[in-house]
């Protein structure tokens, strides 16, 4: 398995097309798409996804226009907007965790297990109220970060020490985390309340306060929005303005070059994995500290996979991912409105999936278009130059 990654990341640009323009580099935002193309690609992809969804709806015998209208109507209500913002916060943090790995060609598919295990342990510790007030919030956050980092660190160590691909390792760790979490719930942290097995709720003085940002609704916006924005900025600064970030990106672009310039690739792999896991540990915190205040079966699931999709949509760009998280959250939350039209809400899932696939392909096509245009321009210039010389002679 190590060879799998060595060979794919070892080839310059990993894309096989050579040079700086490897596919993964383009997709993960390591190569800048110029100006309007960067916007056009995802827009085209979303339109294409809407088209495919329309076809699916037509086949099922419903009107696509009504469906999109219902989505838009529902999504623009003040209460829904607050809810969308709240889930987008979680999606965004999860996407950041995935993106940290992506920038180094590490596929942390295990964000899902990391955030859930972190949430269970953090909920158990927070519910025990070992510390008063704000200190308890900090304790919960530290626990979540540590658990997420440790769980991801296992995959990092296995990759470095034993050559196990992080893709397989994290997928297996996801399943193990699920079992471990349910064991922790039923044996240590869980309290049976009626039919529901949940952790003790976090005391009121240690809950994250909400913000009344959107007028016209009692629904508060989760205070974690601020944390998510800070994390996004930190992500940008860390990757683009620090030595560590440079080494991380360099390793992701070309491992041999990184080795040649004295970067300890193995150490980078473990560090990046741990960092990614640490951020992943925070993904469940908006829900835990700001909404439900406990871990139960109703805790959001599958955030890790949403994070992967959003990181791909936003090309690992902090702003792009924020937009992607909002779109994702809009589709997830508004899908309930479809049921009023007797359309299954899974339609939104189809649209999400198709969006991701077509965004990936759109970036590739846009890139090829640019290459061809550039070649044509260069060709015209070189063709024009000798002609001018000939005229002078």
């Amino acid at each position, binding site marked *: *398995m*190590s*060879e*799998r990654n*060595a*060979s*794919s990341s*070892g*080839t310059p640009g*990993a*894309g*096989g*097309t*050579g040079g700086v323009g490897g*596919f*993964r580099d383009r*997709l993960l935002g390591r190569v800048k798409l110029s100006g309007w193309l960067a916007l056009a690609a995802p827009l085209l992809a979303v339109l294409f996804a809407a088209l495919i969804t329309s076809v699916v709806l037509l086949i*099922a015998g419903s009107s696509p226009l009504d469906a999109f209208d219902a989505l838009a109507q529902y999504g623009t209500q003040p209460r829904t907007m607050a809810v969308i913002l709240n889930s987008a916060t979680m999606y965004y943090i999860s996407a950041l965790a995935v993106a940290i790995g992506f920038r180094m060609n590490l*596929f942390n*598919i295990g964000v899902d297990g990391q955030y859930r295990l972190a949430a269970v342990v953090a909920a158990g510790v927070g519910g025990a109220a070992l510390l008063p007030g704000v200190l308890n919030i900090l304790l919960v956050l530290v626990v979540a970060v540590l658990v997420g980092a440790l769980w991801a660190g296992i995959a990092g160590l*296995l990759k*470095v*020490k*034993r*050559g*196990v691909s992080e*893709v*397989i*390792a994290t*997928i*297996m*760790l*996801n*399943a*193990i985390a*699920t*079992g*471990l979490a*349910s*064991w922790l719930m039923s044996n240590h942290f869980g309290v049976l309340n009626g039919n529901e097995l949940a952790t003790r709720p976090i005391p009121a003085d240690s809950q994250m306060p909400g913000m009344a940002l959107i007028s016209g609704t009692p629904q508060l916006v989760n205070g974690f929005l601020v944390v998510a924005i800070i994390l996004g900025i930190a992500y940008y600064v860390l990757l683009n303005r620090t030595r560590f970030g440079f080494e991380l990106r360099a390793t992701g672009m070309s*491992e*041999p070059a990184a*080795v040649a310039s004295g970067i300890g*690739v193995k150490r980078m792999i473990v560090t990046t994995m741990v960092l990614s896991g640490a951020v992943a540990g925070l993904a469940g915190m908006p829900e835990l500290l700001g909404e439900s205040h406990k871990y139960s079966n109703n805790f959001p699931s599958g955030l890790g996979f949403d994070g992967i*999709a959003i990181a*791909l949509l936003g090309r690992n760009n902090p702003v792009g991912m924020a937009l992607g998280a909002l779109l994702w959250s809009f589709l997830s939350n508004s899908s309930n409105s479809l049921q009023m039209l007797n359309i*299954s809400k*899974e*339609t939104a*899932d*189809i649209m*999400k*999936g*198709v969006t*991701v*696939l077509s965004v*990936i*392909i759109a970036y*590739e*096509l846009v890139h090829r278009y640019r290459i061809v245009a550039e070649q044509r321009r260069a060709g015209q210039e070189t063709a024009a130059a000798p002609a001018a010389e000939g005229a002078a002679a």
Partner: protein
Amino acid sequence: MSGQAEGTTTAPAPAGGARATSPARRFRVTTPILLLGGVGLVVLLSAVRIVTGASDITSGGTVAAALGLAVPIGLAALGGLWSERAGVVNIGLEGMMVLGTWFGAWGALQFHSPWAGVVAGAVGGALGGAIHAVATVTFGVDHIISGVAINIVGVGFTQYLSKLVFEKMPGGGTKNSPQLPEMGRLSVTFIDGPLRTLEAKQWFLLSDFAGILRGLTQGVSWFTILAILLVPLSYYILWRTAFGLRLRSCGERPVAAESLGVNVYLYKWAAVVVSGLLAGLGGAFLSIVAAGIYRDGQTGGRGYIGLAAMIFGNWRPGGLAGGAALFGYTDALQLRQGGVSVHALLLVVALLLAAMAVYQLVRQSRTVAALITAGCAALVFVVFMMTDTVPEQFTTFTPHLTTLLVLSLASQRLRMPAADGIPYRRGQTT
């Protein structure tokens, strides 16, 4: 080949490097060694059964369940083999399997025949394969990214479809189908009675062999037999025909293949579609034979485990069948007296680790490695002695943990196709 060169420079473990220099490292796996190993394993299991009293670890029921659970994993692994031999990494196996479960159930219900379901499941999986082929081969998208996307799409699409189709059927619901028509099973009836009595005696070794034989000969679905036959068939096609040689050359050195007139795109397309077809068959097996019903989330990550089985099997049909059997067996144990059986398995693991430590010390003279292995063996043994049973939540991830452990022990010796996972564009020079 650049892939291989980098493979050695970035080769993981210092242990791998040390091993490469050790002369004792190479031994060829031959048929006698395989048979001897198999018999040795049964002796070990038998001894553990006597010591721990976990009677289910070699019972006919467990073996039959293991066979049934190994089939979908093995089919997914075969799917992985086809596509990765042509140089396309297929993480999307899971999504194609999910498609297979739904289409399999739908086909069986629509045409009132389980075999129609098998065909439909294969077609559904092949559709998923075709999407993967469009993305990776035609558009040159990164293989892992496309695969992850297919897994997301596969789940959403089947949930949508089951709501659309199964909910309206009597006995169906939003998350499950009605009961599916049953598939015929094959039993060698005349040996059932004697084997059963022999098994009940609980004798050392004899009863275990009786249990294993009974599990392999009683109530075996025709689909299982088909799946087992697909392993030698894949071997024949991929290693003994011109088509297979060309397909594998696309996974090793596509540029060279193209220069010899092989249509690399076409071969990769064919490989990925067959890969999806096989994964779809695996999914159809789950819904039609294993459960007799389609359920949401039925695959439970078996596509990924199949991929791991293929890696464990070193990208070879025989090896992946062994991997599938191993994972199927650990999967079956959790169903049969889960806590007790998995607990007994701990003793097996401890003994195997101890044997490995001795091997490392005596044959390879690797003292440090032997000490570490012996330490692990002791640790597992202590855990075994301190506990009576394994909590049921832990038994659910036994196959996944096994996968992880096996890969971390075996990863260094494996050799993947040289150009696996690298997007290929026609006209590229390297």
